[in-house]
């Protein structure tokens, strides 16, 4: 039973208030992209054992989508941040570096 702090309304939201939305920071490929690019965008996932970046929606709260950095092995939450960004804030990456030295996720580290 997870808890995330919603970065928009600031409250500690219980999992029952939230909807999970899968992997974060996907780059959309539309018309003109190759079959491989489009397949990768729609289906291939990091699915890491460890540090992960994912999307949640505070659906029974403020209704906002946000991003979370979470460990899939311990369920530790390193931080939550706006969904309106292309990469996690440096502050959160720094926090993960301190707790999981050498972590890597796609091209973030």
């Amino acid at each position: 039973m997870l808890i995330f702090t919603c970065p928009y309304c600031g409250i500690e939201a219980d999992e029952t208030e939230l909807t999970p939305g899968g992997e974060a920071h996907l780059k959309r490929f539309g018309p003109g992209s190759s079959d491989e690019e489009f397949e990768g965008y729609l289906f291939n996932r990091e699915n890491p054992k460890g540090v992960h970046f994912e999307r949640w929606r505070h659906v029974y709260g403020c209704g906002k989508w946000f991003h979370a950095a979470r460990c899939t092995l311990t369920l530790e939450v390193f931080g939550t941040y706006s969904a309106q960004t292309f990469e996690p804030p440096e502050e959160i990456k720094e926090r993960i570096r301190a707790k999981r030295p050498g972590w890597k996720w796609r091209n973030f580290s």
Partner: protein
Amino acid sequence: MKRYSVFAVAREALRYHQGWGRAWRSPEPKKKYEAIIIGAGGHGLATAYYLGKNHGLKNVAILEKGWLGGGNTGRNTTIIRSNYLQDASAAIYEKARSLYETMSQDLNYNVMFSPRGVMMLAQTQHEIRGYKRTAHANALQGVSTEFITPDRVKSLVPIINIDGPRYPVLGALWQPRGGTARHDAVAWGYARACSEMGMDVIQQCEVTGIRRQNGQVQGVETSKGSIDCEKLGIVVAGHTGVLADMAGFRMPIESVALQALVSEPIKPCMDVVVMANTVHGYMSQSDKGEMVIGGGADGFNNYTQRGSFHHVEETVRALIETFPIISRLKMLRWWGGIVDMTGDRSPILSTTPVKNIFINCGWGTGGFKAIPGSGWAMAELMAKGHSSLTEEFGLNRFKEGKFIDESVAAGVAH
């Protein structure tokens, strides 16, 4: 290895069962095998078994990080059915179901396949139409199912509440030859049979790397040393992503927790398996008397084998509504497993970008029922390079958009 029979048991009883040997050997790995299977769960063991039995390939090792059958094979709700809609699914699940029928005799190990019948309740007009369609499809697929009336439902399952009030039972899709089996016994039976064929079941042996050369597999690095192989099958369910990463390719897989629970045992009160998809719950009664209960999967990536409690709550609530008498039973045991979900929720049985590496994964919430069919098909794929049963389950389908979507009965209401 000693054959199992009532006479053998009687004979052994005279010396207090001290004469039984190991059900499977516990060998050290050899330097090289013709084929290595990573993962000694039901699917991995069945793959090895049919490699030997159907294709004469017996120089095989099955490597297991933990204990054989210790993953989802031993953590599911043991339902066996093949009433799938799409041809490809019906083919492999029906193959599996029919192999289950003779598995005890085939393996000389009683896996307690119990063809008690599986019933899927229709509780909306939309579900009625979906299940009627499935029944039509099944008739052409050689899968014996029928759509039955609420009265028939009640006579088969007297403890069911067919009157609602929220979702009255409007009928059901009934597969009389579906049922349950003893999950652990399936893994143990295959392991024993593989061992008897001379295969090496190697437990506590973690694969740490996959050696490749010129786009072809060479062997694996393990916690028990380096092992060469000509062919490699990866059959590791929730850990597929990790192994694929070692082999250098990506997978359309996400690992999430699926939970189940059992009640304390009671005397027999329900003879069939009932699934209620509108309210999201299913239930059967084990031979031990426990009510075995399952529901939906969690929605986020998770490797902890611990799910979120609110899913259990929703499932139990749904089943109390469906079976009011269970309210005063008690939840005895609850557990979670990590299931691997693909983009279309159907499995992957496929060749891979690396030559002679084959992959079998993505069974999601429905793996147990497929074990023998999956092993049969995977063995054929590994031995011959193709199999009619795996043809549609290839990795390329995600690129081509040729999905196998079994959720079609759950479209939208207008």
